[in-house]
């Protein structure tokens, strides 16, 4: 009898608790806008041009929002998602390294092969297992809200691929791959003899030749998972060029379209056959006819996952992406949709990049307005990538172009303010700010100069990636990613030489050298701060953490070569690329912004406080590992 009574009491208490949460959350609304890379100083300088942000500041609150170590988007947004620091969610960079091979791997998601499959000739039919999974630890805040009966729409959240499983409407943002599995691989086709390159970062350049005014372009698709050799798939896009006019006709899979010079196509659907007439996957891409004469120059965007029939999970519920496409038309699903790689490679000019990035923003704004209109109750989160991607290419050199993007986003914020009215809390946040990227630091070359890294032949410095000539038997530390240095640790790295007992000594010696590191051209310090993960992070999920995180001074950043394990000849050089703004520096150098239509209780909010604030607003308790406090 006593047992029965006890069970009844527990059941009653649990029911009451759930009902209490539901009651507290019922009818509540909150809007959170994530503006990647919105910089507080730029905003302060241009308040007069940004009336909605200015009004939020005057009638509500404006603070600088402390960012994560390192201040990289996947790291920072993972902190917003989970309310944890990187030591909790386990994302430390865009790329991690496999400790055994020291090869770079995606930090956000991994693809797994099927555990059982049936081989029929060259084909491999998966029977069980396999797929893609997130590498981020911790629960997403909208999963927690969902458990407590709070509805939410979380659109384009970065570092959310594949999307966290729940009932909420969600669409994956930055980190969503293209059909080839990369963050975005473009293809450029030309018969211009002056173009000698074949591979550039973020894309391929393909030589073509016209026969009778016609050429066939192979648009690369995903590796065929249904074949044992994983042969790459492709679809054919035939182009026919007019003999004299700057115009061409394109034919693919029964569809035709015409483009004039400097014109982008609408979305083109492509069906990639995996098993002929049995199984295929669909992607979408856009074509840009840069020039028809005297040489043909055709740019094909990375092939996006088709939202109407996604080959990989990009939304919850799974058909949400299709419904959204039905309502707003086809849209970019690739996490980073702005064609920065093509601009960096000199294939697209600045004007061409701006046209394309405005298309991305227009896509984004259309979807935003549709979802904002639909929003009734619960949480509405929407993410904008345009400020960040344009800041990378325009920062401090093309302020008026960048301001145009800020203005467009400001208008969207104005619409959200109007929707929020007086009863709905609104937060506008950015994950980090921006700084000029003037000097590129070759961290591996620095390590070599300081005696921490050795090559098998000291003359073999250069841009060859993946530590091609590194002599691991004489190397104590190496750098990969944009802020991380790893010790070549015995028992962890294959062929590691630093015993566990000496690790701290090596790191301290290295930290001292980094702190003393000065730019020979200017005499300025290159490194603002060096972070030890055990001190910098509260969480202990440090499996993939660098052993040392380098916080560069404003103006300095790890070079592109460093990110992929190259050891160039010089330690520092001017950044002469089109990518002129960045944020992968010391985190206190590039804080983000926090605007609200409510007064804020704290003067020094942090990214992970946003998570606590969202849950707090709906009366939902924080989950294990969350370290933030509500800003209200």
């Amino acid at each position, binding site marked *: 009898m006593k047992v029965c009574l006890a069970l009844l009491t527990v059941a009653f208490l649990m029911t009451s608790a759930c009902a209490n949460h539901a009651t507290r959350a019922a009818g509540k609304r909150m809007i959170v806008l994530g503006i990647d890379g919105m910089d507080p100083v730029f905003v302060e300088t241009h308040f007069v041009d940004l009336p909605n942000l200015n009004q939020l500041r005057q009638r509500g609150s404006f603070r600088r929002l402390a960012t994560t170590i390192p201040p990289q988007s996947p790291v920072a947004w993972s902190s917003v998602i989970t309310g944890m620091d990187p030591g909790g969610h386990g994302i430390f960079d865009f790329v991690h390294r496999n400790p055994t091979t020291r090869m770079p791997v995606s930090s956000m998601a991994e693809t797994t092969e099927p555990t059982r499959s049936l081989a029929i000739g060259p084909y491999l039919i998966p029977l069980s297992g396999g797929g893609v999974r997130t590498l981020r630890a911790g629960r997403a805040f909208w999963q927690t809200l969902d458990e407590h009966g709070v509805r939410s729409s979380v659109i384009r959240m970065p570092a959310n691929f594949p999307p966290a499983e729940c009932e909420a409407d969600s669409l994956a943002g930055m980190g969503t791959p293209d059909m080839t599995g990369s963050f975005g691989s473009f293809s450029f086709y030309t018969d211009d003899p002056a173009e000698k390159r074949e591979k550039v970062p973020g894309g391929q350049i393909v030589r073509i030749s016209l026969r009778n*005014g016609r050429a066939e372009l192979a648009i690369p698709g995903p590796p065929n998972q249904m074949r044992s050799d994983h042969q790459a798939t492709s679809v054919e896009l035939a182009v026919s060029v007019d003999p004299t006019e700057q115009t061409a006709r394109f034919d693919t899979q029964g569809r*035709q379209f015409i483009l*004039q010079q400097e014109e982008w196509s609408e979305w083109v659907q492509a069906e990639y056959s995996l098993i002929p007439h049995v199984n295929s996957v669909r992607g979408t891409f856009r074509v840009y006819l840069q020039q028809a004469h005297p040489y043909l120059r055709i740019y094909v965007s990375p092939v996006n996952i088709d939202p109407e029939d996604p080959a990989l999970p990009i939304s919850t519920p799974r058909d949400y992406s299709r419904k959204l496409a039905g309502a707003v038309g086809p849209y970019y699903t690739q996490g980073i949709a702005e064609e920065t790689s093509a601009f960096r490679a000199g294939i697209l000019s600045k004007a061409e990049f701006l046209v394309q990035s405005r298309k991305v923003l227009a896509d984004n704004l259309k979807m935003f307005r549709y979802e904002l209109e639909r929003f009734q109750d619960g949480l509405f989160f929407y993410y904008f990538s345009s400020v960040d991607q344009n800041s990378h290419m325009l920062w401090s050199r093309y302020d008026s172009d960048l301001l145009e993007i800020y203005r467009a986003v400001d208008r969207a914020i104005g619409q959200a303010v109007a929707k929020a009215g007086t009863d709905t809390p609104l937060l506008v946040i950015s994950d980090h700010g921006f700084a000029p990227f003037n000097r590129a630091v070759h961290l591996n070359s620095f390590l070599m100069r300081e005696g921490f890294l050795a090559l098998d032949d000291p003359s073999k410095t250069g841009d060859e990636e993946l530590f091609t000539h590194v002599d691991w038997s004489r190397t104590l530390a190496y750098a990969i990613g944009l802020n991380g240095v790893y010790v070549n640790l015995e028992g962890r790295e294959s062929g590691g030489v630093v015993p566990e007992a000496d690790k701290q000594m090596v790191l301290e010696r290295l930290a001292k050298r980094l702190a003393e590191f000065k730019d020979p051209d200017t005499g300025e310090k290159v490194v603002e701060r060096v972070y030890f993960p055990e001190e910098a992070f509260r969480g202990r999920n440090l499996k993939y953490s660098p052993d040392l995180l380098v916080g560069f001074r404003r103006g300095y950043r790890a070079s592109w070569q460093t990110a992929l394990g190259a050891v160039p000849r010089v330690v520092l050089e001017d950044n002469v690329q089109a990518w002129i703004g960045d944020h992968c520096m010391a985190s206190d150098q590039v804080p983000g912004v926090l605007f609200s239509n409510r007064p804020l209780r704290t003067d020094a909010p942090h990214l992970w406080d946003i998570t606590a604030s969202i849950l707090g607003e709906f009366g939902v308790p924080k989950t294990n590992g969350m370290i933030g406090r509500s800003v209200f």
Partner: protein
Amino acid sequence: MEIVNWIIDSLLLVVHVFFSFAPRLVGLTILASATGAAMLWVFGRTGNQERMNQVKRRVQAGLLELRVFVDEPAISLHAQRGLIAANLNYLALALRPALWMAVPMALLLIHLEAFYERAPLPLAEPALVTMRMTADWIPSAPPPVLITPCNVAILGPPVRVAASREVSWRILPYSPVSDKLLFRFNSQEVAKWMEAGDRQRYVTGRRVRSRWEAILSPGESRIRSNFAEWIEIRYPSAELRIFGFHVNWLVWFLIVSMAAALLLKKRFGVVI
């Protein structure tokens, strides 16, 4: 052939106009039912009904044999052999009516495409018009001149495709159109009918020069001038929704016509 095309089109247009008050599905369903009934009648008139009845009885007997002598392998095997033979016999008997029906059915389906397969061009969306030139065309020469109705814009210059002897234009209708596109080349003219707007109607895809191709592309008279082999407008596919699902019009047509034939066979006294 043009006269045949004209007669079929006229008959179908009458049906189309008669049911224009109702959703497209209604007209299609009635047309399919009538076709099913007509084909059943043709089947009854052209097939050997007596022999078919005998063969059907043989099939029934074979099936009964299989059920009764399930434990007798020799008899079962014999029954199966008999069934296969009866089925082949039935197929042979059905061949004659099938041949009688094939030509009119194919013609009917080709003509129905103009009613149910294609939708008019959507407004404010570019569409392609392509002309296949005759073999003596010189690609580097100036292309034909396209003259459009006043509510249709031409977007940019045409593309001359040397490899396939084609010239393509991009047009943009910005209000509903049911009018002709006019092509002028070497002081000759040729026209192609175009349709744009929301209302579903009779939409012809291609106008051709060849007599044979005219069978497959009915709806417009053959091209008389000697510079173009065909002119085509790329129309979007028409949508047919049944209980909220997209259904191909041809699938629905075949299902309804077969169902009508099965339902009416006793009334018509036809063995199928």
